[in-house]
């Protein structure tokens, strides 16, 4: 059998990731120049003897403003794409995305509560990420426990439980939002997503969650292939199906919750990135998962680049950009390749 990820695709993923990172670092209200950024980055590599072309201000723009934002985009994009791919595998449902089991509704409720009641605002402490993280985790936990307690066909019941929890949390969120109409604008822009960071701290908070989640998901990539033949046959092949599903859902949820806590509810990435990869390289999760991490990261960095440059100095919510540019791109991929299911 061929290797899971061909050398060609591994190289393409690496090139795409490096290029989008350099573009993300170079472009913005101040154009730092692609070559200059490359030289600056290389100047930090010992023994190469490359001199930095940057002044103190440019250095600060690059490392204090842009780099954390690019790094956050990388983590969030990788996480959402990998979580989407994993959800699609574990639920054998092409429409599954990281928000399927109530993560988005929970995060939305958490963030809305904090924004509407201005919790922690006086102390200058931003509690939105913590509230969003807690809400997302709680939403999925409730959906999972509800689904498991019902029994029956597990994937279908879990999805229905997720729909139920999401509807309930969304109702609460809408209620809170209506009662505090003056904060609607702020809530709305949080929901559409943004990668505004307060520097490296956010990145360092998200990093461990995404790293652990990515490791667990990658670790299960072959088992996701086995689940493609259904719970029953997977069990007859010796796979502890319920445990695999729980571990994958838990890992994808923690990573997603950490990501959305800082990025808001960026839609669509978890669906189009894994599907575009499937259309191009095939359905085996041994290829889809690692490539989703790489292409998801690069994709979100580029989308963020568009969101902060196209109407500069104002910014477009990144969720609008991912859907506006991602949808036509996906339509083209869909038209030019054969149909492939998850």
């Amino acid at each position, binding site marked *: *059998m061929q290797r*899971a990820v061909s050398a060609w695709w591994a190289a393409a993923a690496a090139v795409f990731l490096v290029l989008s990172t350099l573009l993300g670092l170079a472009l913005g209200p101040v154009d730092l120049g692609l070559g200059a950024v490359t030289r600056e980055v290389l100047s930090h590599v010992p023994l190469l003897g490359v001199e930095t072309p940057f002044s103190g201000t440019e250095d600060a723009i690059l490392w204090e403003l842009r780099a954390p934002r690019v790094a956050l985009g990388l983590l969030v994009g990788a996480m959402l794409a990998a979580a989407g791919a994993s959800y699609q595998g574990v639920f054998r449902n092409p429409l599954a995305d990281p928000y399927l089991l109530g993560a988005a509704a929970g995060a939305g409720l958490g963030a809305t509560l904090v924004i509407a009641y201005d919790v922690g605002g006086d102390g200058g402490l931003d509690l939105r990420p913590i509230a969003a993280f807690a809400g997302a985790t709680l939403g999925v936990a409730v959906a999972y426990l509800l689904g498991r307690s019902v029994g029956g066909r597990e994937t279908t019941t879990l999805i229905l439980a997720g729909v139920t929890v999401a509807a309930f949390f969304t109702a609460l969120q809408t209620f809170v939002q209506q009662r505090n109409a003056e904060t609607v604008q702020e809530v709305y822009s949080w929901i559409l997503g943004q990668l505004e960071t307060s520097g490296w701290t956010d990145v360092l908070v998200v990093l461990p969650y995404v790293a652990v989640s990515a490791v667990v998901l990658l*670790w*299960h990539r*072959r*088992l996701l*292939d*086995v689940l*493609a*033949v*259904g719970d*029953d*046959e997977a*069990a*007859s*092949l*010796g*796979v*502890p199906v319920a445990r695999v599903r729980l571990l994958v859902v838990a890992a994808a949820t923690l990573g997603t919750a950490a990501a959305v806590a800082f990025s808001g509810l960026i839609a669509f990435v978890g669906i189009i990135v894994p599907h575009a990869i*499937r259309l191009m390289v*095939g*359905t*085996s999760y*041994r290829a889809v998962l690692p490539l989703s991490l790489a292409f998801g990261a690069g994709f979100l960095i580029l989308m963020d680049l568009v969101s902060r440059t196209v109407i500069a100095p104002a910014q477009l919510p990144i969720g609008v950009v991912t859907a506006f540019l991602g949808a036509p791109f996906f339509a083209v991929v869909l038209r030019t390749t054969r149909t*492939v*299911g998850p």
Partner: protein
Amino acid sequence: MLAVEGVGVELDGVQVVQELAFDLEEGGWLGLIGPNGAGKTTLLRAVAGLVPYAGSIRIQGEEVAALGRRAAARRVAVVPQIPVIPPDTSVLEYVVLGRTPHLGYAGTPGARDVVAARSALARLDGAHLVDRRLGSLSGGERQRAVLARAVAQDASLLLLDEPTSALDVGAQQQVLELVASLRADGGLTVLSAMHDLTHAGQYADRLLLMDGGREQASGPPHEVLTEQLIARHFGATVRIVADEETGIAVVPLRPGVESEQPVP
């Protein structure tokens, strides 16, 4: 090799299998026959360790319920009635899935597993199918891939749940001949639920007739395939044609219509 004693299975409060007992010797082929809803599939699932059961099911002396999932999958391979076919998976990738119980929890298949999968396909005359997508196969080719996956699993007991129900008569025969040859040259033991009574009589060396979750008759085909038993349990009017040359055939007749005697 397989010893079933006093086995009962309850699903949603309904006793689907009751007091079932039989032994199956190494290399034997036991055919389960019976009307729809007789409990054949449930019995197979119990033997594979996929549903909880009362009583005892031992494979090579070991209680199935006490074996872990992986250990059970190394002893018993299942060919389900309607396998889930991921259409874009290649035949080779699909057959390699059969190696799962021989890999660690998160292990990936190595060269040896690929060799095992290829040789399983070759044994089933399916070597030419390796690179095809499952979605592009005919019914018979697909069933060959599913059988190859079970063979790659390298288990000593093969459970078949109506393995030929969606196939034309030629493909049915091919699949059953393949199973017979696996049994002959691999020492595989076969337990199969079978819809076609003629095939059941031709391929299995013993039959067990189930109805209402219980054993109604068992023994060599000519003792179980009788016009009376088939009328009672299937509600079917049949004629049994048996001779030295053709073996046994179950021919359905239209009830109430006198069959025309062939003009000599």
